[in-house]
């Protein structure tokens, strides 16, 4: 690789989950007035990309698919120090599942490659807090034929010229140390770094920056049946509130003192489940010897 390192970070704008409300009667999500944020997991990806740029130079592009209002999140990413921002927005993308999302994003990534140079590293978050599937990253990697590195906790070594890369990956029961080659798609593990504060310069630059806005046609999507609801093999047929268990909780009346209540609770537990009582007494007896 002789050109400078180009990283693209995929960020999603999501409702701030802490403030989401569900309509008590209709059980639908009330999105009006709910503030939006950059998917928190994506900030670890963005910070890692910025750190690589600090070390090796190059550019960081942020990419988001969403409604026009998602420009806010991209601008926020620019204030942290990203160099350029692309918003992929089209009503045909509405209702996309992860397969349709990874298709649209991979087409935008190809357009980014044509206009700004092919990405060496595509970063995504581990997962989103609304979709929560962790599928979009692997989907993009497969479509673009990039080496897929999920749950990365650390980038140990990178040789931008030779393209060699050593990373630590969170696996079951331990950490895998993997050696691979650019180009790669990395999904970054949470807690792996801490997002920087933007500087005055980046804030000023962000205020002046132009966000590139592309629709489906602009990224070369001709077959619109691959987008949105029509391009999504999964179908949500039913959304419902979980029912109460057929038998509701037996309520233990609170007694006059916490001590009396505590004994009532223990009697109720042991009454329901003598096995627990026996097990507790057995372990207590063992501990005594």
């Amino acid at each position: 690789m002789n050109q400078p390192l180009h990283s693209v970070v995929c960020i999603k704008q999501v409702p701030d989950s802490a403030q989401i409300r569900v309509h008590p009667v209709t059980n639908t999500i009330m999105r009006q007035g709910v503030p939006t944020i950059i998917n928190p997991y994506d900030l670890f990806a963005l910070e890692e990309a910025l750190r690589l740029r600090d070390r090796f130079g190059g550019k960081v592009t942020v990419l988001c698919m969403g409604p026009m209002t998602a420009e806010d999140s991209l601008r926020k990413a620019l204030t942290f120090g990203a160099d350029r921002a692309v918003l992929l927005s089209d009503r045909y993308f509405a209702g996309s599942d992860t397969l349709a999302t990874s298709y649209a994003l991979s087409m935008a990534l190809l357009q980014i490659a044509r206009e700004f140079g092919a990405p060496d590293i595509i970063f995504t978050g581990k997962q989103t807090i609304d979709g929560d599937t962790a599928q979009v990253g692997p989907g993009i990697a497969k479509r673009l034929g990039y080496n897929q590195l999920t749950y990365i906790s650390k980038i140990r070594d990178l040789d931008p010229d030779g393209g060699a890369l050593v990373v630590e990956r969170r696996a079951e029961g331990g950490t895998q140390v993997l050696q691979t080659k650019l180009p790669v798609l990395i999904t970054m593990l949470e807690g792996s770094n801490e997002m920087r504060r933007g500087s005055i310069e980046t804030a000023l630059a962000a205020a002046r920056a132009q966000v590139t806005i592309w629709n489906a046609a602009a990224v070369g999507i001709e077959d619109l049946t691959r987008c949105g609801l029509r391009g999504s093999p999964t179908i949500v047929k039913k959304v419902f509130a979980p029912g109460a268990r057929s038998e509701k909780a037996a309520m233990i009346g609170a007694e006059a003192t916490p001590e009396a209540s505590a004994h009532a609770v223990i009697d109720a537990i042991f009454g329901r489940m003598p096995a627990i009582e026996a097990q507790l007494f057995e372990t207590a007896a063992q501990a005594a010897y």
Partner: protein
Amino acid sequence: MAQQPQAGGGNSRAGTKKELPEHFKAYKHVWVAVEMEHGAVHSVSFELLGEGRKLADKRGVELAAVVMGESRAELDAAAAQCFEYSADLVYLAQDPALAHYRNETACQVLTHLVNTYKPEILLLGATNLGRDLAGSVATTLATGLTADCTELEIDEEGSLAATRPTFGGSLLCTIFTLNFRPQMATVRPRVMPMPARQEGRSGRIIEYSPAINEADIITKVLDFIADRDSDKASLPYADIVVAGGLGLRSAENFQLVKNLAEVLGAEYGGSRPLVQKGWITADRQIGQTGKTIRPKLYIAAGISGAIQHRVGVEGADLILAINTDPKAPIFEFAHLGIVADAVTLLPALTEAFANRLRINRLAS
């Protein structure tokens, strides 16, 4: 610089009515992609076999397991276990390149097997490994994948109905892949019960030698650093779990949960906001995006019972909820409840339990 990337994937058109294309009609049987790391089968694979058995019986088809690895002895041992957990058939892929999990090799092998033997349902564990593999296999096959399911069913039309929590704090949704095959789903460890093992049960093995050329595989595993035992919270497998939520009001008060857990020889945990506030570490989070538990006794203090929490604890035999709000959703799925201030009740409970255990010990 590397080659220009290319977009791939099939030319798909989804519909909300079931109009299964002709070439998918041959897809039959239920599969579980078995997760093996360091020779041992992950228990989530057995849980999935238990669930897969029910789906297969309902469809009147066979249940198959896919195992892949390097050592024939380990693979045979894994296959034998799969049969005992009710698989009828095991696809056994053996190759030196499959010694450690890598996305490239695993995706290649699983995709090949699916295209050759055509299952209608493919289940994987929602672990780091399973999610890594499922996402890339689903994209390669251009089919639907539903993550983190809490319930799997077959509907009247014979389709897989995959239910999972949806965004918003209190809702579930049921997702279908009507017109593509296989129908794929992942399920987290401990969400499904561990099925009974049928000693001595056996089945057929179909072997596959993928003949992978290691030189073609770009990613190499340099090392594996196993977690220290102290890093592994045994929350998912604990018999008794005590947990706290925001109702405890402060990090200091969380100590009350730990104290009760200690007297009971229990594990402790908490709701997600406690992780966000730094009161507990992420590996102690219970719920959809944390650990799923199946204890005999679960004590929840100051936890409201949001759906994301509920799906992680519903497998408990006995749930006791302590909450000041008689309308808290947790009372809808707890077995026992008390409307009380957890900050005063927890220490009283700790002491009362300690006393009873002491008295019993003296008496015996």
